[in-house]
């Protein structure tokens, strides 16, 4: 594998003295799905927030494509090519599905300080937005206000928005949460397909899904990395079994 897309080195975050993430180190290469698992409160979402810039790290380093991005504001990180799917659906509820994606593609314009030509006349943006919608299977819902979409559709829409910004690194925070069986399967397939030309950091509770798409797993407990290895090795690890997977080890 080539130079990693993402290299996280001893990253820590304290909330008023409480260590939510502590000394986390991990690497992620293009074409790789790296899943981060752990019990609730292990610091998974905090970790993602630190990588996306929504949270400021207390210490440590985050290098994306060789560039230090720790502590940069989220918009800078996003512009570098990092897409973020939030744990709690984070879209523009009053906009249509299409407008949600179109706005996301507009981020590619470089600057949106464009004051006169109507946004809808930027055909390449419209097309990219349509493509993103089609990619997640929402082409038929383009005119529906996002608020009127089902929960699963909203997750898909948010993924489409994230994709519409043309990222190389995807931070996916529980993409399957609250999804039905069929929707889940489609999402898993989608993620697997995206892996080809993206680096994907995946936080997910659905172990079946995790073990089916992840190339590598990091187990986070109390903000610390308990283990980081290939899925099979993690499955066999006794430490992981005891600390986290416990009796509910996936079949």
């Amino acid at each position: 594998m080539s130079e990693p897309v993402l290299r996280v080195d001893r990253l820590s975050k304290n909330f008023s003295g409480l260590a939510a993430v502590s000394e986390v180190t991990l690497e992620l290469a293009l074409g790789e799905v790296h899943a981060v698992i752990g019990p609730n409160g292990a610091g998974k979402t905090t970790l993602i927030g630190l990588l996306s810039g929504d949270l400021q790290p207390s210490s440590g380093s985050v290098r994306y494509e060789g560039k230090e991005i720790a502590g940069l504001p989220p918009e800078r990180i996003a512009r570098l090519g990092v897409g973020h799917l939030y744990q709690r659906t984070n879209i523009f509820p009053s906009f249509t599905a299409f407008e949600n994606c179109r706005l996301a593609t507009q981020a590619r314009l470089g600057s949106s300080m464009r004051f006169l030509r109507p946004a809808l006349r930027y055909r390449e943006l419209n097309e990219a937005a349509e493509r993103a919608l089609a990619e997640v299977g929402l082409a038929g819902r383009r005119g529906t206000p996002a608020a009127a979409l089902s929960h699963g559709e909203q997750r898909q829409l948010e993924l489409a928005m994230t994709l519409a910004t043309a990222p190389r690194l995807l931070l996916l925070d529980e993409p399957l949460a609250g999804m039905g069986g069929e929707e889940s399967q489609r999402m898993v397939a989608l993620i697997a397909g995206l892996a080809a030309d993206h680096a994907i950091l995946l936080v997910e509770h659905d172990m079946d899904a995790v073990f089916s798409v992840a190339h590598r797993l990091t187990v986070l407990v109390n903000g610390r990395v308990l283990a980081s290895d290939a899925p099979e090795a993690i499955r066999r690890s006794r430490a992981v079994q005891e600390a986290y997977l416990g009796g509910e080890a996936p079949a």
Partner: protein
Amino acid sequence: MTRRLSAASLLPSLVAVALVAFPAVAGKFYLQLSSGIMIMAIFAMSLNLLVGCTGLVSLGHAAFFGVGAYALLLLSPQYAPASLWLTLPAAVGAAALAALAIGLLVLRSSGVYFIMATLAFAQMFFYYANGAKWLGGSDGAYIFAKPDAALFSVAPFKLADNTHFYYVALALMAATYGLLRLLLRAPFGRVLEGIRVNEQRMRSLGFATFRYKLVSFVIAGGLAGLAGYLDAAQFGFVNPELFGWRQSGTVLMMVILGGAGAVHGPILGAVALVLLQEVLADATRHWLLPMGLFIILAVLALPGGLAGLRPPRAMRRRPEARRV
């Protein structure tokens, strides 16, 4: 897209014709009153860019209105008219510059902080003008001659003529309306809408929202300066109260009354509020009481403002229209 020739779609044209024809039937006072309303409409539209479009509730927008007005005062020679073509852009520029300076500070805050910080900065302007002898202090100051529209010694119109002033105000109101319509349809406006709905998402999509908010603030400030300039030009009088919180509150009320968001909403709000004041003040000395009660009831009962009573077709026609 459906094109039906309904009464509703004819309405804008009818309104336009009525506005253009109005001076033919109106007396001097109603011309001046309408000009005043149109000036307030420009002011309200400028604030709406912040409140309705960007989601920034400013309670200090009068600061820029006042800067525009005082700019005309400072640029006018004592008893001779100043050139419209020089002073108007200069006033708008001064207001925009003031908005840039204040925006850099207040936009660092948000929500309630933003509301209070904007109010406080406007108060700062008020206190300054109130004590500044060179600006006329608390008594205000006169602009003795209306700006001169002569260009290469040919004057296409005279602002001293009430009818001409009316048409200038009307044209500028229409221009402001058109400009805002354009802005809001353009990528810039879409970003503002996005910021209003979910700023944090905009940032994680890669938009440097601070910059867009700042530009929005500056444009709004400039347009408020335009309104202030016209206000000062209409009666030739400026006073520190132009910066006052009553002024900021009134214009905010127009925005909300008209329905924040819709570009034409503030125009409706300005018309409604001014007329309401006329009626109430004529009816009772304690007219502020019904006025206050009206505002309270309007907030509780009319969340969408006047424009929300019947969403205009234009807003619903396009699939990406976003108001639900």
